[in-house]
């Protein structure tokens, strides 16, 4: 059996990559994909702990996270499409009306 | 996992479902909004009937209890505690029934912002049911204050000319009393460590002099709501300005929250103070009876007349409750229902007239019986019921109240003098005076105004609105025992507990 730590480590690495994607990239779609990656790494951690504690609750939770992710993607992509219609761009830096 | 929803929670919050549906309607879907509200209120009424079927009249304690810890911080012990017993079961039914009928009565009367009207109305129903079902002081207070908001909106948005003035007056008056009650509730919750009403009642042990102050604090809130003389000044304003359905609910149910509060909290929690203060409350009640009757007689506005008559009628209720014997208290509870039915019907009747003629000045009418015979006959029944003719509902309640208060006036009773009853019985004569005067002004004599000649008699919807109330008027009048049986066990238990506490408390 592979030690639990490795899985957690892998999960952390993937999570960090996801964060970097959100912070560095300007393409809204890729940012979005990075968010998905982060969710995915969290899922990995959940499954790992479910295995560790021999409890199915973790897996059920992952199931719900997937459902939420699906919903989020649907709405998120719709938002992106809507924004693209308005601004003809998916560059998040174009959207800075909060600028003080 | 059990997802069973207890009936009391269901009946209280069922109107919310209707509200959610209403939110999805467009503003121009008036008919849909009406139907949604009507069906919701009818289902709520159905649920309350199911509760009645489940209710065991022989059991004097709270039934169908649900008790879930709610706010448990900093040593506070607040719970979501609902229950129904003989003191409240009839009021629940009255509330759900009158709500349905009121919604039916707005069918053509409310044309403006129907959706919002219905939303507020259903919220109001939720709040009222909560007030009658809550058995935790804090929860009760939340519902109590909650009812203010929709009523404020109903008066303030759909009311008459001076609606803003009336709405604000209504709100401030009730708030002023409530604040004293809130202080008393907090005192009880903190020093007695619970907000749970049965527990507080069972504990006893509140020192008599403190009971006195707590009685007054609770009493202030309730007396304003009843309204007891001389705190009635908000009532004519609110009634005159409120839309018909609002008046019906205001008179039919909201005022009962005050008398119910006295019954549930003051009598139960502060028995010693109740016994000691009973003659004073009875004195105010008797003044209210006579004063209300006299002032009613001098009104020109028929709605105001009915409003002041409420002061008189609720004086009877208070007199009965503070007779502190089973005839008086049961009569008082029954009279709450009777007043809800009769005065509710009177406001519906006035509303129908107002919808046709857009005036409530009694001088503008006369001879309507000839023009609108069905309407006249139904009004006559309601008027007779309101003045307490035997065989109709008002008599049973008033007779029991006066019989009880006479008994309480004998040596050994709490009132100490039969004069309370003798004077209150004069109120029955005066009731006949102002009600027959009203009936004569509206319906008898020749038709003097041309515009009255063409009025249409009431239609099927309006008959349907009044029919359940008329049936109840006869039912309670001819065979009141089913209603009395519902409350007798709880009332007897309450009185026994009070007697024990009062005997123990008075050295």
């Amino acid at each position: 059996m592979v030690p639990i730590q490795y899985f957690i480590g892998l999960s952390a690495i993937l999570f960090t990559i996801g964060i970097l994607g959100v912070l560095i990239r300007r393409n809204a779609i890729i940012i979005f994909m990075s968010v998905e990656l982060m969710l995915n790494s969290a899922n990995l951690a959940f499954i790992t702990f479910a295995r560790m504690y021999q409890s199915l609750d973790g897996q059920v939770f992952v199931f719900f996270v997937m459902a939420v992710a699906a919903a989020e993607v649907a709405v998120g992509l719709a938002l992106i499409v809507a924004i693209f219609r308005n601004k003809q761009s998916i560059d998040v830096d174009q959207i800075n009306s909060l600028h003080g | 996992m059990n997802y069973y929803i207890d009936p009391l929670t269901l009946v209280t919050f069922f109107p919310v479902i209707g509200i959610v549906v209403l939110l999805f309607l467009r503003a121009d879907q008036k008919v849909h909004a009406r139907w949604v509200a009507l069906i919701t209120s009818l289902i709520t009424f159905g649920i309350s009937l199911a509760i009645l079927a489940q209710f065991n009249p022989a059991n004097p304690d709270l039934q169908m209890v649900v008790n879930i810890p709610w706010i448990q911080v900093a040593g506070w012990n607040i719970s979501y505690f609902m229950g129904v017993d003989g003191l409240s079961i009839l009021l629940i039914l009255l509330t759900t029934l009158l709500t349905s009928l009121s919604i039916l009565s707005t069918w053509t009367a409310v044309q403006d912002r129907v959706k919002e009207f219905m939303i507020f109305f259903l919220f109001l129903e939720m709040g009222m049911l909560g007030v009658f079902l809550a058995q935790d002081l804090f929860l009760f207070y939340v519902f109590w204050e909650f009812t203010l908001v929709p009523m404020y909106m109903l008066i303030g948005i759909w009311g008459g000319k001076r609606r803003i003035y009336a709405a604000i007056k209504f709100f401030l008056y009730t708030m002023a009393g409530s604040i004293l009650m809130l202080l008393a509730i907090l005192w009880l919750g903190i020093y007695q460590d619970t907000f749970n009403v049965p527990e507080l009642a069972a504990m006893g042990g509140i020192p008599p002099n403190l009971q006195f102050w707590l009685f007054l604090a609770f009493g202030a809130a309730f007396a304003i709501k009843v309204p007891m003389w001389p705190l009635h000044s908000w009532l004519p304003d609110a009634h005159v300005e409120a839309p018909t359905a609002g008046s019906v609910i205001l008179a039919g149910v909201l005022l009962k929250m005050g008398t119910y509060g006295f019954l549930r909290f003051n009598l139960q929690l502060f028995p010693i103070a109740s016994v000691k203060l009973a003659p004073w409350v009875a004195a105010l009640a008797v003044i209210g009876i006579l004063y209300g009757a006299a002032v009613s007689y001098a009104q020109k506005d028929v709605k105001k007349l009915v409003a002041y008559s409420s002061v008189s009628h609720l004086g009877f209720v208070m007199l009965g409750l503070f007779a502190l014997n089973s005839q008086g208290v049961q009569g008082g509870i029954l009279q709450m229902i009777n007043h809800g039915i009769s005065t509710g019907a009177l406001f519906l009747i006035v509303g129908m007239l107002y919808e046709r003629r857009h005036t409530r000045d009694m001088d503008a009418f006369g001879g309507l019986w000839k023009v609108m015979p069905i309407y006249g006959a139904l009004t006559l029944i309601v008027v007779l019921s309101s003045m307490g003719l035997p065989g109709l509902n008002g008599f049973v309640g008033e007779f029991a109240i006066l019989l009880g208060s006479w008994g309480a006036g004998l040596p050994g009773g709490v009132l100490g003098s039969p004069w309370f009853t003798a004077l209150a019985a004069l109120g029955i004569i005066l009731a006949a005076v102002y009600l027959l005067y009203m009936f004569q002004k509206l319906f008898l004599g020749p038709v003097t105004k041309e515009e009255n000649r063409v009025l249409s008699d009431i239609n099927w919807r309006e008959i349907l609105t009044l029919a359940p109330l008329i049936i109840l008027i006869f039912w309670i009048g001819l065979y009141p025992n089913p209603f009395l049986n519902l409350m007798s066990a709880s009332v007897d238990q309450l009185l026994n507990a009070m007697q024990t506490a009062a005997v123990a408390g008075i050295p």
Partner: protein
Amino acid sequence: MWLSEAVSSGPQFFYLVPLVVLFPVIGLLVNTAFGGRMSEKAIGWLASAAAGLSFVVAVLLGISLLSYPEGAVVPIVDWITIGELNINWGFQVDTLSVTMMLVVAGVGTLIHIYSIGYMHDDVRFQGDPGRYQRFFVFMNLFIAMMMILVSADNYLMLFVGWEGVGLCSYLLIGFWYDKGENGIGNAVAGKKAFIANRIGDFGFILAAFIMFWVFGTFEFNAVFELAPEVASLFPAAIVAITLLMLVGVTGKSAQIPLFVWLPDAMAGPTPVSALIHAATMVTAGVYLITRSAALYNLVPQVQNIVALVGAATALFAATIAVGQFDIKKVLAYSTISQLGFMVAAVGMGAYVAGMFHLVTHAFFKALLFLSAGSVILGLEHAHHHMEHNSQLKLPMDENDLHFDPQDMRNMGGLRNRMKISFWVYLIGAIALTGIPPLAGFWSKDEILTDAANFNPLAYWMMLAAAFLTAFYMGRQILMVWFGKPRSLPAEHANESPPIITVPLIILAALAATGGALNLPMWHTFTHWLEDSLGHLHAAEFSLQIAGLSSFLVLAAIFLAWLLYGRKYQAMQELPPDKRPDDPLRPILGPVFNALNHKWWVDELYWTIIINPYVSLAHFLADVVDWRFWHDWFHDTVIVGGYNKLTQVLSIQIDLGVIDAVANKLGDSVKRAAAKWRVIETGYVRNYALSFFIGVVLILGYLILR
């Protein structure tokens, strides 16, 4: 007693007693629901049949009582049960209640039949045929309520009927609610009746309260059984109960001081006056006292008061009757006066005499009212006929608008035009005045005999009343039927149809022979009532008293003939402006005016009770409640005071102190913000980065601390 021995074990129909209420209720329900689709005849006969069936049941009950004189209590249902309070609806069947049932249903049925004809015309004269149905519904309701009243086995059910008949009275007095003085007179009369009755009921209900807390029950049998015991423990309670009941009686039976409603009640259609305001409802008070004999017997001082109230009423009302011109008003005051006789009788403990007079009075007073109705109808017919007849139009004009078919000054000489009505009216009048051997003589004589024995003061008052009775009846007979017609309608009046005259003839027969019920030789009625009331003394027939009263009656009639048979006719020759309207006016002067104005009792009540109450109500409503409490106290004191307070707070304290501090603070914040705004780039990524850095820092702190 001997009757029950003769029929040793007959059939027993006591279980049928609920039907006496049920039949009229069915009648009224059917007429309410389907009357709109039925013909007038069908409605009227259905209602009459309902009353008639009640009568049949009452007869069956009477037959049963012959075999089982002890009667029975038939319980139906629990009505109100609260704690120790338990009110049943039960029927008391005994000789007393059955007597009342027979009178109510018997006279009621005849009047129903009469009304079929009378109301047919009346609704047309008044111009609203749609109300025909309503009339019979109300009449059946009345019969039902009256039956509840007389058949109740406890005081509270009696009270139900008591108020119920009051309601019917209200509805029927105001039957033509759009007619009368200023169009509202009839409605006002109904209201007056209801409220006067309510004042009486106030006494009754207080009596009921005392009774409950002393006896613990309302049931007749239980109360009467306990009465002697209670009387020794709480004598004051019995006195209070009986006195308060007397208040109820003065309301319902129109005694001093509450009699004022009954004359006004004549606004109702004539059959209503006959049934409710002469024969049945108004006698309920007499029934109540008779029923409560066991209580009244315990308190002689109250009995004395009752007797004096009755006798005073008898005399007082008789004087007023002398000065009236309205044919029905005369009869109304006569009714009050006769009720006074009955109340006086039962007050003296002469229950049999009171009940006897009640029965005979029901016959002859109903007869008088109904034949008066026939007269009114005849005049109205003629009046209407002439209005639509253009040739006769011209001479009609002077009294066209003011023609009052009930004013006796417009009558005269009708005996030739309406023969049947005349003869039955004459029989009724003779019965009322008390000329032997008609019914009134026997019953009135019995009362007078008892009074002579027990209460001399009442005796002399009633003797005077009897004299006046004969005088005003003679006056009425002479003014209405004799002499020459004094108006065109009176000249052309015609006899009424058989549907009206047949009931009159039946009633006339009863009025003539009703005295046979309790002839002094046999005392049939006394023995009959003994089964309900226990031992009763029977007044011995006294030739002296009977002779004196008969002599007075004949003298009064002679006096009436002098004045109205001769002088009045002679006066008709004088020119109208010099002619007094009544021959008594020049003789009595201002006294006649007082009689005509009913001693100004109505005006007195207006001045001392009603007007003050109205002013008080307006004062309370307008000045105290509205201007002082609503406007001044709440709007000026509270709201105004609060506004002042807020003014002070907002200008001096808020603007002067708090606002200044806040403004300074705000300015400094503003300056700081201007420097810091550079940070806000507006890029989401940027914010996310700072968020992330924060997360890392906090995590690091948590892990490494």
